[in-house]
């Protein structure tokens, strides 16, 4: 048997970007010559990577989830109020938060599929609803405090390895495994051609709802890690939805769905975080972060569109449309 690690379409370019960034970090930051530096980076990146994985499920099936940022804020504010600094509350508060994320995802999914409202609008509405609800409930100032045992997941570790890194690994492995299952493959197909999936007997509605539920659930998980990392704040989720979308796009996942791998999306998120760390280490102002993010978003989508066009030309030239040819064209033009 000659087994080779199989990388899905479009995974290679972002992995190369990531490796280049990580190697550069080793030259620039003294602590990146040891594993501890990279573990700290992974710890910090974990919430964004988890959000990006959730966002991937929705984007690859042809939707958008703009509600994750305010979902994170809502979850953190709720956690502080309910945990109220008491360790005894940690267990049920975590369960409740995950349930809350699941519920928000379910509502997003059901409105998108049953009421036929585009997901962009549904989740934008959800963003505003959650923002408003948080403000109404807190009067603009979060109350309560997070128990030390609640914060352990984002702040503490198992020996040298932060808990958040272990949780992150678990999420990525589970997501990669899921995407290789029949359901995962159908999810990608759904983004490519919904009618084909329907005609082939796929449960289109149920799959879409599943994507939103996963996104909501992972956003709640990211909120638990973020709250653990930095404590209570009513700004914690601001702009995270765009950061997650940028990460997914940087991972070569095509907006509109049907193309891209979950590992690449996760690598995109990690690259984004590594890039920001690198910029900070070489002394570029933090104010440039959003500009850089904007450039990446546009450039990555442009590259993907360009690649798609070339792929079409290429397919016509070789007459025989094949996945191998398409993947190569993708790789060259990212």
């Amino acid at each position, binding site marked *: 048997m000659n087994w080779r690690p199989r990388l899905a379409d479009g995974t290679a370019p972002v992995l190369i*970007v990531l490796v280049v960034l990580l190697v550069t970090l080793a030259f620039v*930051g*003294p*602590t990146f010559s040891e594993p501890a*530096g990279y573990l*700290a980076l992974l710890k*910090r990146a974990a*919430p964004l990577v988890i959000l990006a994985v959730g966002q991937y499920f929705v984007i690859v099936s042809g939707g958008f989830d703009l509600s994750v940022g305010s979902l994170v804020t809502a979850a953190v504010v709720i956690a*502080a109020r309910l945990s109220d600094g008491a360790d005894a509350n940690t267990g049920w508060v975590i369960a409740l938060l995950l349930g809350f994320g699941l519920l928000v995802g379910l509502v997003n999914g059901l409105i998108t599929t049953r009421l036929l409202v585009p997901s962009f609008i549904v989740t934008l509405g959800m963003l505003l609803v959650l923002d408003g609800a948080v*403000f109404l409930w807190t*009067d*603009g*100032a*979060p*109350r*309560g*405090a997070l128990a030390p045992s609640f914060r352990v997941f984002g*702040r503490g570790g198992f020996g040298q390895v932060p808990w958040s890194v272990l949780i992150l690994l678990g999420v990525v492995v589970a997501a990669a495994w899921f995407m290789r299952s029949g359901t995962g493959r159908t999810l990608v197909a759904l983004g490519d051609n919904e009618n084909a999936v329907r005609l082939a007997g796929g449960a289109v509605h149920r799959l879409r709802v599943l994507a939103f539920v996963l996104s909501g659930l992972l956003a709640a998980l990211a909120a638990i890690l*973020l709250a653990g*990392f*930095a*404590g*209570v*704040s009513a*700004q*914690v989720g*601001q702009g995270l939805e765009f950061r997650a979308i940028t990460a997914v796009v940087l991972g070569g996942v095509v907006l509109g769905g049907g193309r891209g791998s979950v590992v690449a999306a996760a690598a995109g998120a990690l690259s984004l975080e590594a890039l920001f*760390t690198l910029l*900070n*280490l070489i*002394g*570029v*102002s*933090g*104010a*440039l972060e959003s*500009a*850089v993010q904007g*450039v*990446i978003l546009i*450039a990555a989508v442009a590259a993907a569109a360009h690649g798609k066009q070339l792929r079409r030309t290429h397919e016509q030239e070789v007459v025989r449309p094949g996945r191998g040819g398409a993947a190569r064209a993708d790789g060259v033009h990212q």
Partner: protein
Amino acid sequence: MAALLALTGCTSDLPNAEPAAADKTDKTSEFFNQAEYDRQLKFRTATPVGPDGKPWEQMLDPELADTAKYAKPGGKHHLCFSNAAVNNPWRQVGWKTMQQEVKLHPEITKFTVLDAEGKDDKQISDLQSLAGRGCSALIVSPNTTATLTPAVEAACATGVPVIVFDRGVQTKCPVTYIHPIGGFAFGADGAEFLKEKVPAGGKVLALRILPGVDVLEQRWAAADKIFAGSGVKVVGVEFTGGDAAKTKSIVSDYLQREGKIDGVWMDAGATAVAAVEAFQDAGVPVPPFVGEDQQDFLRTWAADKLTAVAPTYPTYQWRTPVIAALRILEGQQVPKEWVLPQPKITQVQDYVEQDMPPLHYAMCGCESMPGYPGPWR
């Protein structure tokens, strides 16, 4: 991609973008004003006029103005208030304090409040609407200075006494303008503390919320001025956006990059605890710290025995406009510009309140009000 990144790099000389930190201390900020700076620094040591222990009734260097023409004997006042917003913890604490202050005065029979929700256009129409409601006196907390000036002038023209507080307006028409000393004094309080506590050549990290807000720019301009004339080295000036996770990441990055940070200056304390935690999680001692009077920072300061100072922009200033309005309606003199004392906290144990919310501001002057702490929880 690299070329595109370089392209964005070229735009770093936008007015508000910070250049690389190292050459930052060489220039003076466009928000710096030597005369105002000197005036504010002098106010800090001036002896206030007014009752002891009630700083919200005290005034610094007052020039009293006659208000006899506004006198309205007999009480039954209808007080009106156009509020810029209640969209942050500072305004929340202040707003609750003002409501309790109103309750203290039975001669106020009606209190009408319109919240502009942080929008200039809404506040302009709020002010127009209040003009027709028969207010005895009108309190205004302007959302922005320049845009609200004409609307405040129009309100003055109706003959109702107008009281402005917190942010100002560019007109002399209000009967009184109430504010604490100001941003330069705030920034200087923290910077002077670090100048004293950080050894010569020590590395100071400055954390700011966001650029372009005049109050915050003044705080930094004063600190920048003081650091420039001291032995400490400002290794970075970063914007946190008020985000705790970002603050913690920035501080961790600086700890990696510089190896050691000897002092942290902040223009506001909302994310101070996250910054402190970055040192604790890295396993290094927390250096001298500048925070603010939020309870979460004060509690961390007390619990971990930090070397710290907390300049304040006191929320007790929300009591003063109500007091001023009543004095004006009684025909008593009030200062044209009512400058309130702006204390800094150096003895943390006097201000820690374990059971108040994390973002409650200690300098609310509300502890002795009836009903405390109920409404502030």
